Every structure is written in structure tokens, then in C-alpha cells.
């Protein structure tokens, strides 16, 4: 396969600097609201802070891939004397937790780096993080050319509906709803 140079967008998370204000959750859910900024709701945010103040745990986590089944990860990590669940670091929108699912529909959420045209200088959560716990980093990477079309929100959502109810039932429902 052909190699292409691609800009990879990433966020460095300096958890030591997070002060747990949730501004990232507010602005993320606000940016992704329809119409834009019309509402906010951290439960719809694609970044969530694992926030346990008395244990001094502040861990911003981004929503990653949707997965239809839960994993076996039940390990504990102890870092600087603080105990974390393996789960705390995981980006997946998975069936074993509420995290990164729309609270009403249950549909999965995924961070899209606030992509739009023209591009923002940085994702909104980074812009709103005055604590500088979230640092936007762009780097060039040589990757194999990806011919697969990128899945949009609707495809990801429908995929999860199909996983749950089966293709036929989703088709029937869509057909029924499409009728005037």
C-alpha cells in the first residue's frame, strides 16, 4: 500500500495540572450541541474527567472507539501511591459503563477533535483549559494510505443500533419512520 504523510492531531494530557473544573466537559458538549452552543451537558461530553478529589485523582479521558462488547480488563494500577482502575484510562464507549454514551439514546460518543472547515486552531477543550492540563500537539506521520471511508456519527450510531437489534429490525424501523 502507498505511504502518505498525514497530520496526526493529538492531545497531551498533563493530569498533574488538572484542577477538576470540568470546563472541558462543558465546552465539548456545548460545541457539539445542535444548534452549536445551544445547550451543554457533561453527560454528552466526549471528554470526561475521572475526578476523585479526596484521593487526588484527576484524569481527563477522551472518548475513543465504540465497542460492542466489554473487555476483561479488571486490573488496578498504582501510580504515585494512587490506585486507578484499568477502566479509568480507557477511551472506549463500551457496554459496561455509562461513560461516552448519549444519556438519552445510549448512542456512542467519540472525540472528533472539533474538526470543521475552516479548522480551529485547537480543539475547544484545549482552548478552555486554562490549567494547561490539555495540550494540543500536531505531528506529521507517515502512514499507509487508508482507502476506507471515514465513518461519520450516523454510521457509528447506526452500527451500534445494528449490533444491538440486528440489521433487519433497524431497517424495518427506519422504513416505518420514513413513512409520512
Amino acid at each position, binding site marked *: 500500500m502507498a505511504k502518505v504523510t498525514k497530520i496526526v492531531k493529538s492531545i497531551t494530557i498533563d493530569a498533574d495540572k488538572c484542577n477538576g*473544573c470540568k470546563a472541558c466537559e462543558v465546552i465539548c458538549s456545548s460545541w457539539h450541541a445542535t444548534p452549536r*452552543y445551544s445547550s451543554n451537558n457533561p453527560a454528552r461530553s466526549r471528554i470526561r474527567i475521572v475526578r476523585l478529589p479526596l*484521593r487526588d485523582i484527576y484524569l481527563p479521558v477522551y472518548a475513543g472507539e465504540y465497542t460492542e462488547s466489554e473487555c476483561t480488563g479488571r486490573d488496578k494500577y498504582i501510580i504515585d501511591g494512587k490506585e486507578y482502575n484499568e477502566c479509568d484510562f480507557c477511551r472506549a464507549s463500551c457496554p459496561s459503563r455509562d461513560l461516552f454514551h448519549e444519556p438519552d439514546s445510549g448512542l456512542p460518543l467519540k472525540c472528533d477533535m472539533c474538526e470543521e472547515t475552516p479548522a480551529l486552531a485547537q480543539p475547544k477543550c484545549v482552548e478552555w483549559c486554562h490549567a494547561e492540563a490539555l495540550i494540543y500537539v500536531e505531528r506529521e506521520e507517515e502512514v499507509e494510505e487508508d482507502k476506507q471511508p471515514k465513518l461519520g456519527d450516523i454510521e457509528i450510531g447506526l452500527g451500534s443500533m445494528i449490533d444491538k437489534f440486528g440489521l433487519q429490525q433497524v431497517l424495518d424501523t427506519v422504513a416505518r419512520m420514513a413513512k409520512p
Partner: protein
Amino acid sequence: MRYGEIGFDLEVDLSRGSIDRVDTDPNDTRLYLGGLGTNAKIMWDRVPAETEAFSPDNLLIFSSGLLCGTAAPGSNRTIVSTISPQTKLMAYSMMGGFFAPELKYAGYDKIIISGKSEELVYLWINNDKVEIRDASHLKGLGATETSEAIRKELKDPDIQVAAIGLAGENRVFYASIEQGRSSASRGGIGAVMGDKGLKAVAVRGTKDINVADPAKYMELCDDVLKYIKYRADHPIKGVPPILQGLGSPQEMAIVDEEWHTTNFTWGNSRTRRKDFWTHEIEQKWKETQENVRTRLISCHNCPMKCGATISVPGLPTYMMKCYSKLTYTMAAFSDLDFGFKIAQKATEYGVDGFSAPQAMAFGLELLEAGILTLEDFPGMPEDTEGRFYYLLEKIVRREGIGDFLADGTYWAARRIGKGAEKYDHNTIKKHEQLPLKLGMLNPVYYLMYSTGEKINITQIEGQFPQEPFATRELREEFVKDWFQVPDEKFKKYYVDWEPRGEMSNPYYPTVEASCEIVDWMEKMHYIDDALGMCAGLSSFPLKPPYHIHNYPEFVTAATGIKMNKDDVWKSATRTRTLMRALNVRRGMRRADDRPPDDHWRKRFPDLEKQLLDQYYKLKGFNEQGIPTRESLHDLEMDFVAEEFEQKGIYNNG
């Protein structure tokens, strides 16, 4: 659909065990905005003058503000209102943290609690599902312990909990409601919660909060964030370090405590130690603070870091903000290490950081004076620190002398008698004040201390510098970028104000100017308390990001209710007047509007009379401090005037 606010309150009657979701009148939003404003209206309508603090008919209202939970940075305050057992007036104490936004995410603007439960219970609000749950297993637990226990039993670390400790359960008159890094401490609202048999309120919400004009609203929010950054890079020179930036005074970040330790008083608000702050103390306190402070932390959606996680070796972790690190330290003539240690216990027990140490120092002063004897303190240790711990335990359990001191210095002095009254020297309207004793009367502060309905100076001051800078050039420099002023004349008042001479305290600012300055400062607090905005980004610090020029735009864009500067100003006037009316109905009059007698050494009775007269006139009050028929009519509050007339309040003075 309603914007900014939710449009629903939760009514909980603990006597009957009933829970109702009720819709609210949008016209009240136009009139009172929300938060404290609408709380005051509910208190006026539903809590008659005769109702005592510990009556089932007293209400305990947990309210969000109009902007709480929206994207506006710092809009996170919970405004708790009830009748105070200590002042017997309406208490409104507030807390930051995460509670109010969570309440709105759950789908409510307020929780209005009435009645009394016979058994200890807690309230669990999970979106549409609301339960009154047994709390017998939480009895006697600390406030932080309670919150953790509830999160554990409901298996959700993101639940926000407001809880009382032992002090609230035992109805200590200055018991607080604690909520993680924040607390609503003033006025004894925790005692009312305890009296109602309510150990905690737990809330979790996953719904949307909507705004009416999204693009405009976000533009306003972004401007605020930019200005916060600008102010971080441009601290105000010439004022103490803790007052140079935004937020609460930065007590957790900054260790330089020269200003507090040398200007504020020690013990039972008695002694000034002008030479206290030395290089050795600074080194020692720096080490203490940095050793126990794990992390600086924020409230919901706020870039400031006014709080801290405190882990004293050998003690459970707790969270602290602002000045309580010094109140115990200074009341006990001790050091910062002691302050951090005793504050851990005091936070778990849930007591107010101003009143509690003052009451303890007062008790020990009575012992020294021979009014109390060692027999009143059986088993008390010899050392002062030990004595403070001993008294804290006695107070929160209302044991022995603790039962007296648990009522605060005013009531304790009167119950003890034998001349104890003159040791209660630092209260206003029966409520303990910041420990501060000064020389020359400051006319602006005289008015704020005398008339503030919150009865707490930090909740009325701000915006206008506490002192003039030394030279006219410095003052001119200061006013250059002072766009927050509601009117250009305030710049002149400040520039003309001199540290000494004719144009200085107490005769300058003039009587008229002093009243206008106070009017501006208190109006901003009333607006904040209605919107649920933290005073630390608005009414308290110098040159804040929120001010009278952008607030109307925020309100309009959030709610869709078109309001200009005059409308917002008038709404704040309305709430301020209604607060006064509530307290007038409960018996408050001109004679109560006074600072502690010894607050300033140099007093000016004629000038003070002029100041109060002019302030009342500006506010539309009569010479007794009662809102007049005309001013009430102008504010669309004829219902207040009618009741005053019915009760003969205008006739009897």
C-alpha cells in the same frame, strides 16, 4: 421551553414525605432573575414573620442561580436561604463547588424543603427519580464522610452531595452545610437542616441546560475567559498579594500572610500584632502550607483555583478555601500548622470558620476574666491548642459550656450573664464578624457593615478599592482601564480620595459619594447572587470580568428575556428591597443597622447619622430603614406595602 433556567422547582415536604415537581412563573425571572431573588420572593410569600428557625414551617431552599450550569465561567453558586436561628432574620449563605450545576442538569432550579422528618433522612435526586432515604446509618458522621458514604452506597462517584456534620445535627447556631471543596456557612443554615432531620442532599443529573441565543452567549463567555487570562497577566499593583488577582483571596496559592496577620485581630478579636510577620514565620508557614497542600482545585467551570486539597499527615484528607486557614490560627494565638489541623475536624463537624473560632476564643476570655471558672470546663487541657480542640468537641455535641457557646457569642453572653455581654463585642445583628479592629472610620465601610443584609462584609464589599493609593498619579493610573464602573463619576471619587488630609476618611468620599459607592458594590453582589455567579469573578475583586455592562447581555442571551442595564439594575434593587422588607417584617429597624461599637477607634456620630439617612433615602427607605410605599410601588412590590400597612409597621416605626 425555558432558557438559562430550567423552569421547575422540587418541593419536598419532610413531614409528609411528599415530593413534587412544580413549574415556576417566568414573570418572576423578569422581576427577580433567580437564585437569591426568587428565594426571597418565596420566603416572603410562604414564611410569615412569626415563623421561627426551628419550626416545620420554616423553609430551607437550595437554589441554583439563573446562569448556573450554563457555559458562563464561574456560574456555579448554590444559594441557600432560610430563617437563621442566630439572627432570627433571613439567612442566605452560598457555596461554590458543583452542586447547583448538577441540580440543573438533573432538571431543577431549586429544592424547596419544608416540614421536618422524625428520623434522620437524606434526599437523593437522580434526574426524574427523587427519593427520601433513611440516613440512620449516617448519624454522627462527618460532612465529608457522609458525602463519601453516599457516593459509595449509590455507586456513582460523580454524585454531588451537600451534607451536615455533627454540628448541624445538634443545631449549633453556626453549623454549616458542606459540599466538597465548598460550604454554605453563615447564619446557621446547617442547624436548620439538622432540625429538619435532613443529613444530606445528593444530586446527579444528565440533562441539558439550554440557552436562548447560543452564538451570542458563547461570544460573551469567550470574552470573559480572555479577560480572565489578561487579568492573570496583569495583577493590580499596590494592593496586598492576595487581592491582586481574581477569584477569592488566593489563600491557598499564596503564603504571604503579612496583611491578614498584622491587620486582623487575634484571640477574641482583640489584639493586633503589627510586628508578627517575620522572615522566620514566613519560612515556617510556607513549609507548613506546601507540605499539606496536595493540589489547587476549582469549582465547576471556573479557571480560578481558589481551593486546595489538604492532607495533613495522620489526618483524613479534606478540602479548604480562602480564609479559614487563619481564623482558628489567629483566634488561638497559634500557628498555621494548628490552623490546618483543627480545620480538618471543624470541616467534618461542619461549623462556620468565622463564628466557631470566635465563640471558642470568647469562652476562654470569659474564663480569664473570671466570669466562667475552670469548673465550667471539666477536663480541659492546659494549652490553648488543646483547649480549642476541647471546645470544638463540646460545642458540636452541645455538652456543658459547649451548649452555651454553640449559640454564638451574642446568645451565649446573655445566657451566661454576669457581665459576659461586653465580651460579645464583635457581632452585628447577633452574628460574629471578621476579626478586624481599625482606627479611623471609613464611611463606605461604615455603611456596608451597618446595612448589609448578609451581615458579612465580604458579601457586600468589592469593586471599589479599600484604600486610596498613596499618590494621585497612581490613582489616575488605576482608573485608566477601569471600565467596570457603572458611571464615570466613580473614577473621580477614587482619584480625589487621599490617604490623609481634607479629602480623606471619614469626610471623603462625601456622604453622597459613599452611598453611591455602596449602592454599586452591593448591587453587584445582588446580581451575582441571583445569577449564581461567583463573587470572585465579579463583585468581590477589583476589575472583574463580569460587570454591569456585560451582565444584561448575558441575561438576555441566556434567557431570551430582553433586559438592558436599567432592567438588571432594577431587578437587583427589587431583591435588595425585598430582603430588607423580609427582615423589617421580622422586626429589624434602624437601631440594628450598626457596626460593632469598637470596630473603629475614631467614631463620628453626626456623620454616621448623615450617612445612614442618605443611604436610606437613596434606597427608598424611610428614616427607620423601612422601604416606603412609593419605592415599593415603583418596584412592582405593592404587596409588601399592603402587608406593612395591615400590620401597622409604618405607624409603629
